[in-house]
């Protein structure tokens, strides 16, 4: 056994055990690790966004625009719309901060409206093509093999299940029932995959504890 001399690894190991202790029950050790985790991650996130978005994207681009304005004159500066356009985003972001002031907080809805509206439009075509039309195209198959038949029948019944304007009764209800069976089988497969994923994460942690931290492996 050769425990790691690295203090960072020790902290990592002790915190891992702290979070694991939740499996036994809620306790102060877990609470400490949880609070630390929440605080550190919120801070980390803030700093990351500040340095990767706010500084380079907003200040950086507007800085370039101002620089062109000052060095190349008024006309060139004004026509540098690519860099100036970031001001628009900056203003929308500023409007978000206004919600700190209850009286004019409603203005922040404009920014939200912009985000919701643009993304909805942006996604519409992409989803329609990649998840809609392309998948329909892939499902139009000759009913000549068992696999193809299952695929077509499964898609058909699944769609029937997600019909909301008709009550699931009679033959329609029967098809919807087949649909939910297909869904449940899909969920089962998905469940299996996720179990694998979770086990992998645990293996990674165990390897950290016994291998990297405590040096008991190899």
């Amino acid at each position: 056994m050769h425990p790691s001399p690295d203090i960072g690894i020790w902290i990592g190991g002790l915190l891992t055990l702290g979070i694991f202790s939740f499996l036994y029950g809620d306790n102060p050790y877990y609470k400490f690790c949880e609070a630390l985790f929440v605080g550190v991650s919120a801070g980390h996130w803030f700093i990351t966004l500040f340095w990767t978005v706010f500084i380079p994207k907003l200040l950086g681009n507007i800085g370039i625009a101002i620089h062109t304005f000052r060095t190349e004159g008024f006309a060139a500066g004004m026509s540098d719309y690519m860099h100036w356009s970031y001001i628009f985003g900056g203003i929308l972001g500023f409007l978000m901060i206004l919600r700190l002031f209850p009286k004019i907080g409603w203005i922040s809805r404009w920014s939200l409206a912009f985000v919701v509206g643009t993304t909805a439009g942006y996604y519409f075509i992409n989803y329609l093509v990649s998840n809609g039309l392309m998948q329909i195209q892939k499902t139009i198959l000759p009913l000549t093999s068992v696999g193809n038949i299952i695929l077509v029948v499964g898609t058909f019944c699944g769609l029937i299940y997600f019909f909301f304007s008709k009550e699931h009764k009679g033959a329609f209800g029967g098809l919807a029932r087949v649909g939910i069976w297909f869904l449940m089988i899909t969920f089962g497969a998905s469940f299996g995959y996720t179990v694998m994923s979770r086990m992998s994460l645990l293996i990674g942690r165990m390897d950290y504890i016994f291998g990297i931290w405590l040096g008991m492996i190899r």
Partner: protein
Amino acid sequence: MRVEKEKMVLDRGFSYLLLLAFFFLILFSTNSFAQDPSDTLAPESVTNVDAFDTPNDNGHSITVSWELSSDDGAGKNNVVVYEVYRSDSPEGKFEKRGMVPAGENTFEDQGAKEKDNANYLPSHKNFYYRVRAKSDGLFSDSEISLPAYAYGQWYHTGKTPVLVAVILFSVFAITFITLARKGKLFYIRPLAGIEAVDDAIGRATEMGKPILYIFGLGTADMIATIASFTILSRVAKKTAEYQTPILIPCYDSVVMAVAQETVRAAYLEAGRPDMYKEENIFFLTSMQFAYVAGVNGIMLREKPATNFYLGKFYAESLILAETGSIAGSIQISGTDEIAQIPFFVAATDYTLIGEELYAASAYLGREPVLLGTLKGQDWGKAVVIFSLILGALAASFGFQFFINLFRIQL
């Protein structure tokens, strides 16, 4: 003038060809006994080189096609690659633009659209192409193509199915929204998870415990989160009436802002604006598992009577639902993140599967826009089902034309 010039060039080309033929004749006659003739003879040149604007793009690209050399796959069978050359005048310097392996007869000369790019290919300018059939070191050039220029198209014919689908679905949605606005009530089948909402809130009131409402990791622009806002509005109104506190720890600051807005409006509508507590709707952290750790702590300490998990969920779904079930809460869940539905099905009392979440928001909100859209979607699904059946039959009986209706080129 121009015709004469081209003719002259062809003549020159012809004389070169003669010279070349002569050269090879000598080469062939001296080496014919030593080597296999196919190794020492250049492949036949390709014919019918045709250059034309690449269809369905924004210009800056020309497609070249040709008929394969007679020595490609047959004859001497010694073609290895075809190289494509371009020039802006028939007698100018021809520049290599790319190559394709033997057996292929088209090449897309894709240029850049920025002027300062070395690869710039201007639109509306004539270019001439030549294709070189190459064997291991020997080659023969084709005749020069007629001029062609690149230009952008306004309409992408390969995307017609997309246009049709967009129009069809939009017409459905707009029609049914208009009908709903005019007061037509559409039937929506009951959803078990939603029927349970009132009971769940009642139970919390009896126990004197709060209600926990989780949006998951979605941002405010995701459809699942938007649907969840509508449901929250209804839930919050009920909690205001029952005077039960509602806790909403948030993962996203914008979601938190909208949630505060929603709950405030719901309390106002219920006539209890005094009951609204902004500090109950708070930001936790934007890191997945830190968020889970935080929410888990809240569940075990506050022991909420009812947990709602409605929105976009990822790996945290099972951990949350499992902890909630240990804490003994009634749990209602719903997400359109398919991978997470199994866990919600297994660990919560009611689950809204995928689109049921959107339906639930229409069902509860009773807003014409939502109801109309839902009805429109059902019609859209009917069209899909119909084309699926017809398509499968067409494919089984070999009616290719029907299948081609769905073919998209991007």
